[in-house]
């Protein structure tokens, strides 16, 4: 029983962590609170389904295509939509409000497009949907693969952020953007990279969710909300924090669903969120 909760919780938490990573990069580095984040995630999920059902492409191969495409979309969104807002806000705090309004609009645009193309029905694929025994617990193979993607991508990103020069400059811009130009960092370029990478992570997360979960075109806001809660719990811009908080949230939700009542998972999520917000508003692990 405990083992089951633990393993299923970690597997669920892996997806949450992956989703939150992208949002924490976008908010922490580019300073854009992207309310359309969940819709971008969903768009990638639909693309995976289309590639799988339509072209017969294996989901793993599809992800290899979807992730860089996500980067490209993020790059374009930043250049076309966010850059003018960034330029206008200058050093003032206007960017946060402007970006919330702009991405709130984007949310409905993307959602509308998804509804038109894919309809409002629940969508899912059947891919490697057989149980595998992990330490005596039966877990669907597709979930395990999704978890593996999270471990590789999330772990790689956490290492890159803390151990490489590239990560050092990303963190420098996230923590003290005003000082970054003094050491020759082009803050705009880094912000665009951060936003694009965040979108690539949203796409990877969405595509891996589509491998095992049923979803519909209106689910985006739930993804955004959960990712946001994890970002705040882990500390804005903090990659390692998002990983840990994501796994923790998966564990808690699974525990509440199995031990108490599945209907209470969302309530439990918000209870934790409130406790963190009241007790440690800077997040459990501080800013990245």
């Amino acid at each position, binding site marked *: 029983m405990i083992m089951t909760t633990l393993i299923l919780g970690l597997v669920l938490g892996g997806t949450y962590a992956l989703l939150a990573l992208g949002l924490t990069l976008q908010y922490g580095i580019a300073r854009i609170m992207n309310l359309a984040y969940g819709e971008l995630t969903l768009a990638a999920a639909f693309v995976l389904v289309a590639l799988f059902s339509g072209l017969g492409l294996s989901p793993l191969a599809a992800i290899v295509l979807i992730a860089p495409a996500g980067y490209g979309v993020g790059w374009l969104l930043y250049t076309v939509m966010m850059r003018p807002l960034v330029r206008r806000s200058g050093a003032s705090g206007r960017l946060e409000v402007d970006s919330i309004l702009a991405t709130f609009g984007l949310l409905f645009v993307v959602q509308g497009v998804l509804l038109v193309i894919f309809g409002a029905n629940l969508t899912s694929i059947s891919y490697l949907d057989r149980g595998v025994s992990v330490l005596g617990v039966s877990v669907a193979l597709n979930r395990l693969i999704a978890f593996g993607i999270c471990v590789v991508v999330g772990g790689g990103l956490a290492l890159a952020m803390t151990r490489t020069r590239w990560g050092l400059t990303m963190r420098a811009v996230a923590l003290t953007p005003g000082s970054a130009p003094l050491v020759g*960092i082009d803050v705009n370029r880094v912000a665009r990279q951060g936003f694009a990478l965040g979108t690539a992570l949203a796409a990877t997360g969405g595509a891996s969710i589509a491998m095992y979960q049923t979803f519909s075109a209106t689910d985006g806001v739930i993804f955004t909300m959960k990712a946001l809660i994890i970002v705040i719990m882990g500390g804005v811009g903090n990659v390692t924090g998002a990983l840990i908080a994501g796994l923790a949230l998966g564990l808690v939700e699974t525990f509440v669903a199995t031990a108490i009542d599945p209907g209470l998972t969302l309530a439990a999520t918000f209870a934790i969120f409130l406790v963190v917000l009241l007790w440690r508003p800077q997040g459990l692990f501080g*800013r990245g």
Partner: protein
Amino acid sequence: MLEVEGLTVAYGKHVALNDVSLSVGQGEMVAILGANGAGKSSLLGAISARVAARAGQITYRGRALAGVPQHRLVEMGIAIVPEGRGIFPAMSVAENLALGAFPDRARGDAAAQRMEVFDLFPKLAERRDQIAGTMSGGEQQMVAIGRALMSAPDLLLLDEPSLGLAPVVTQGVFCALERIRATGLTVLIVEQNARATLALADRAYLIEAGRIIGSGRAEELRNDPAVVRAFLGGASAGTS
């Protein structure tokens, strides 16, 4: 090496810098002396592209700097320690120094550069894992100067490195500047601490209410009665 011609900086209607011209030669240490609000930081700000100039021209090694963004200047060899230091307070000393070596020009011999910085400020070597924001004001100033040196600059701009520091600490900073100076690095320093600065610099410009009101060799200015009255009189409290 650096020429400033007819520079005017204004914030709205307020003219902070009015038709300022000066030059800094290769290997020179030049000081800008002036009281609070004279326009010293605005001058360094305009040179380092942190504030926009309303008129005038800034030339570095024969190249006009107009339109060159702030982050490109470091690559061209201009390093600045701004007012307020501009360090990364949430990061460790080692990370601050590593970021200092971010420009391509510095990447090759970052290790050698770091040895030099540690030699200059042994304290930074001892405290390399400390979070910079938790250090004392003097130590943070060392981080800021060390970070600037990590980029292997050809021209170092310093904005009041002694601001807010206790006399002993100020003395330490000026000792370090003397050693930096001895390496032949070109330095443009803004200070209110005229006595210590004039003891170190080759030349100085006096700035008041946004205008240059005098200039000359440091040893001459030291003995100029008008300068002594205006800058070295009561202002020496807390130094040398």
